[in-house]
């Protein structure tokens, strides 16, 4: 019964999103803080240090934390205003039960949990264990992520657990494992500063990882050159030394073309290649045909740009490559990453100061969440769920027979497809808002309509929670404690700032209680997250991401510790691959040849324009949190469609017109933003808004065959001018999906 219980406007009226603007006690009040708690921003994988001001167990304000080495007090607007999610009027303070025709009504915890457990049992008895699935998230702490993985495998005993990191990091993770043998950024961010040339490939750093701007400028102040590839001229691209406006999906053209030139001109490190890598000859053969002219056709840019990029990157003494979703959100996302990694390997510039590469994590704990077992094919410690040795070890830690551990399950998109096909009947989710964040949103909504039972743990009633039968009131990041692993692979400590409001529970308590009621209480008998972490350490011991040598106290004392950290006296490993030692059994890095191929849906006569999607600086992911913060909504109230004046003129569109953007899967109506800073064959819409304002109504459910990441960055659309919409959705407040 997972259809919406009542009209969306009724639900919005009752549960928001509404805007929170003024801290408790008001601006004019004179605030004497009870305490100032050092913790981290939850909005992105950089995990900047912040301090929260607390008064009477309420978060009343914010203060920069200048001693935290990663961001030294620097922040983006999200980090500053994130405290406005505390004391929010929309906050869920009790479990809710769906009431047909009415919406939701508060119920007691006992009744709610009984209902959840009896539905899990009913569905699993009737349709099999795997018919009840679990979707979890990458913004949870390591402790929670670990618990979710264990809960799915031990208590639910379902193979079908996956996480929203599937929408984020999996391409780079897969590529990194294949090429280097380890899934992690190779270097700490401090190495960016020491680089002579920086290649930013498909990363809108100024909006999605703003703090990294500081590192790049510190390098540029030393004289470093900056190369940026992006279909849109982003703020850091504006004054880069070289900006390459690559066609969405044409990245391999740039990378293979650059490698071609570098080989031709002798700007590769043959000695390094010989000693520390395998497979270079195949790659060299593969890029042979990627002459600048050929490569330029694929990339959709002038060939001089590719030559110039090679000239800047090739002969440099030190270099750093940063990449993100711009090359990863593709049906060839893994190959895109491999191609850029080949550049790094061929230059021999990695594993030392100022030399290396990093993948920028989008989600709060994108790195950690996949290591601890939120991913359908992984067990804690980055272990492989289909590897008998790995299974045995984890089964031992958990005290369950190895045979009882499920095998690899479905990843996020196939999981939702299985719901749509009726193969999965029940779902529990946490920290995931799929009806906004998954591609092809109309399909996702249809799938949720078909669930027999859906329960969701959340602190606000997200767009997806509206489909739930039971909503369990969970906790915000600052209402619980634990660790996350930031984009550098650095494990850091999140302190408990306040306790959850009366009626809401810490997430781990909810999960443990469900497990207990399912009859697995003995395996989930924790006194708190610290105990979960201690078990996680053991579970990760001997794995690739080894946390065994870390304790919370040690993490705090050292301002975070980078894995692997195998023993208690080990200082951690900020920089990987030192001395050319890689993660593969042969100790070498593996060159892998990649060929460009078209994206799943290329523009054609019917849908002639490429749509690419992304973020704005004021919002985080599906916007459940940031669309509730007044100051951030003021900064970015609505989505928009960026298009070039050349294209706009062809379509008869002027700035601020209402435009309808349509793909084979759906449409949105948004305002046009006519700008010269985007390719004329491409339009851009940010994806943080729901319903008729959701860019994911348009995007395609095409997946990378290796990483199973969806192709958010390329699909075919048409755009035309339209009238101001006046339907019920359009007249909602903008944070709920309306338009003004």
């Amino acid at each position: 019964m997972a259809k919406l219980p009542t009209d969306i406007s009724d639900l919005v009226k009752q549960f928001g999103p509404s805007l929170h603007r003024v801290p408790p006690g008001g601006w004019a009040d004179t605030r004497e803080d009870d305490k100032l708690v050092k913790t981290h921003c939850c909005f992105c994988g950089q995990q900047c240090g912040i301090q929260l001001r607390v008064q009477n167990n309420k978060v009343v304000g914010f203060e920069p934390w200048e001693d935290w080495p990663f961001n030294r007090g620097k922040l983006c607007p999200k980090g500053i205003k994130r405290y406005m999610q505390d004391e929010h009027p929309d906050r869920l303070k009790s479990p809710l039960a769906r009431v047909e025709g009415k919406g939701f009504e508060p119920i007691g915890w006992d009744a709610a949990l009984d209902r959840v457990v009896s539905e899990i049992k009913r569905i699993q008895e009737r349709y099999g264990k795997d018919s009840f699935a679990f979707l979890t998230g990458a913004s949870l702490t390591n402790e929670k992520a670990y618990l979710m993985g264990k809960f799915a495998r031990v208590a639910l005993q379902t193979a079908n657990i996956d996480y929203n990191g599937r929408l984020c990091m999996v391409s780079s993770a897969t590529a990194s494992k294949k090429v280097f043998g380890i899934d992690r950024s190779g270097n700490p961010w401090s190495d960016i500063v020491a680089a002579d040339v920086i290649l930013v490939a498909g990363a809108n750093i100024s909006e999605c990882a703003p703090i990294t701007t500081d590192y790049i400028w510190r390098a540029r102040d030393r004289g470093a050159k900056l190369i940026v590839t992006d279909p849109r001229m982003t703020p850091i691209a504006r004054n880069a030394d070289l900006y390459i406006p690559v066609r969405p999906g044409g990245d391999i053209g740039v990378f293979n073309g650059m490698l071609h030139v570098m080989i031709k001109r002798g700007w590769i490190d043959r000695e390094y290649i010989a000693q520390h890598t395998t497979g270079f000859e195949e790659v060299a053969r593969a890029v042979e045909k990627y002459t600048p002219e050929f490569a330029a056709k694929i990339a959709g840019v002038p060939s001089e740009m590719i030559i110039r990029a090679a000239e800047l990157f090739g002969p440099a003494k030190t270099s750093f490559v940063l990449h993100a979703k711009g090359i990863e959100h593709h049906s060839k996302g893994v190959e895109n990453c491999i191609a850029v990694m080949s550049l790094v390997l061929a230059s021999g510039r990695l594993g030392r100061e100022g030399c290396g590469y990093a993948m920028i994590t989008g989600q709060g704990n994108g790195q950690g969440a996949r290591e601890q077992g939120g991913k359908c094919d992984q067990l804690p410690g980055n272990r492989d769920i289909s590897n008998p040795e790995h299974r045995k070890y984890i089964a031992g830690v958990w005290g369950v027979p190895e045979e009882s551990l499920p095998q690899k399950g479905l990843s996020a998109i196939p999981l939702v497809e299985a719901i749509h096909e009726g193969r999965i009947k029940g779902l529990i989710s946490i920290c995931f808002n799929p009806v906004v964040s998954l591609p092809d949103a109309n399909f996702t909504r249809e799938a949720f309509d078909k669930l027999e039972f859906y329960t969701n743990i959340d602190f606000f009633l997200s767009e997806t929670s509206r489909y739930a039968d039971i909503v369990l009131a969970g906790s915000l990041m600052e209402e619980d404690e634990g660790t996350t692993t930031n984009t550098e692979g650095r494990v850091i400590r999140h302190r408990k700032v306040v306790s959850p409001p009366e009626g809401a529970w810490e997430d781990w308590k909810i999960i443990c209680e469900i497990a207990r009621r399912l009859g697995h209480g003995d395996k989930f008998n924790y006194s708190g997250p610290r105990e979960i972490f201690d078990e996680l350490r053991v579970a990760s011991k001997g794995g690739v991401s080894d946390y065994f040598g870390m304790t919370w106290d040690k993490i705090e004392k050292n301002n975070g510790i980078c894995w692997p950290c195998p023993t208690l006296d080990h200082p951690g490993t900020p920089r990987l691959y030192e001395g050319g030692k890689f993660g593969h059994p042969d100790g070498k890095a593996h060159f892998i040849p990649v060929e460009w191929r078209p994206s799943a849906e290329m523009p054609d006569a019917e849908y002639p324009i490429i749509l690419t999607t992304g973020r704005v600086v004021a919002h985080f992911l599906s916007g459940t949190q940031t669309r509730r913060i007044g100051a951030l909504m003021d900064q970015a109230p609505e989505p928009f469609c960026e298009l070039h004046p050349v294209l706009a003129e062809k379509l008869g569109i002027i700035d601020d017109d209402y435009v309808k953007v349509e793909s084979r899967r759906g449409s949105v109506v948004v305002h046009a933003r006519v700008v010269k800073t985007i390719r004329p064959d491409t339009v851009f819409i940010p994806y943080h808004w729901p319903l008729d304002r959701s860019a994911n109504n348009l995007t395609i459910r095409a997946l990378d065959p290796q990483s199973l990441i969806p192709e958010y960055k390329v699909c075919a659309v048409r755009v035309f001018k339209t009238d101001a919409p006046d339907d019920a959705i359009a007249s909602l407040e903008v944070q709920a999906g309306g338009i003004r």
Partner: protein
Amino acid sequence: MKNAEFFIDYSRCIGCEACVQACGECDTHRGVSMIHLETIARRESVQTAPQICMHCEDPICAQVCPADAIKKTPDGVVQSSLKPRCIGCSNCVMSCPFGVPKYQIDIDQMMKCDMCYDRSSVGKKPMCATVCPSGALTYTTMQDIQRTRRGIPINEWKFGGEVVHTKVYVMVPPEVERVDINLVQIANTDAALPRDPYDVALMLENA
């Protein structure tokens, strides 16, 4: 931070508005942001720029104030208007060469950046310069800026015939001695530069 100065480098701004959001968090402003963040011309480029009070040595805002409402502290910080005096006439708003003071219609008063006096007067950094992730706004010592930046800090400006010295420095390429505003630029008028430097379509023309 002892002997710290404020340095501004418009060209680095990424338009994230962290400064705007942080400004309102300061106890001397409380929910009202005093900093300006300009989007220069969004159709043409993504260029944005912050503007804080430059804290002139001889502030024109104070000179044109009919109510003696704008005062400078002994350490050279030009304060927001004195509430008992300010009459909301906007002389300062319209005369400031940097376009800094803001007329707050709800309280019929001028308010402006005071370098977060509650913070900077006790050795803390102003909010905006603490959070700015691009280095467009920096609060540090002169030695530190000279050591770490490729440009030089200057604090002399000329608006038509008016020479203005400011407490806040601007980062410029070496050898520039003064920022001279003798002609208001509608767009880029420097002949050495491409006419439309941020037009992606022009960049792709010979693709």
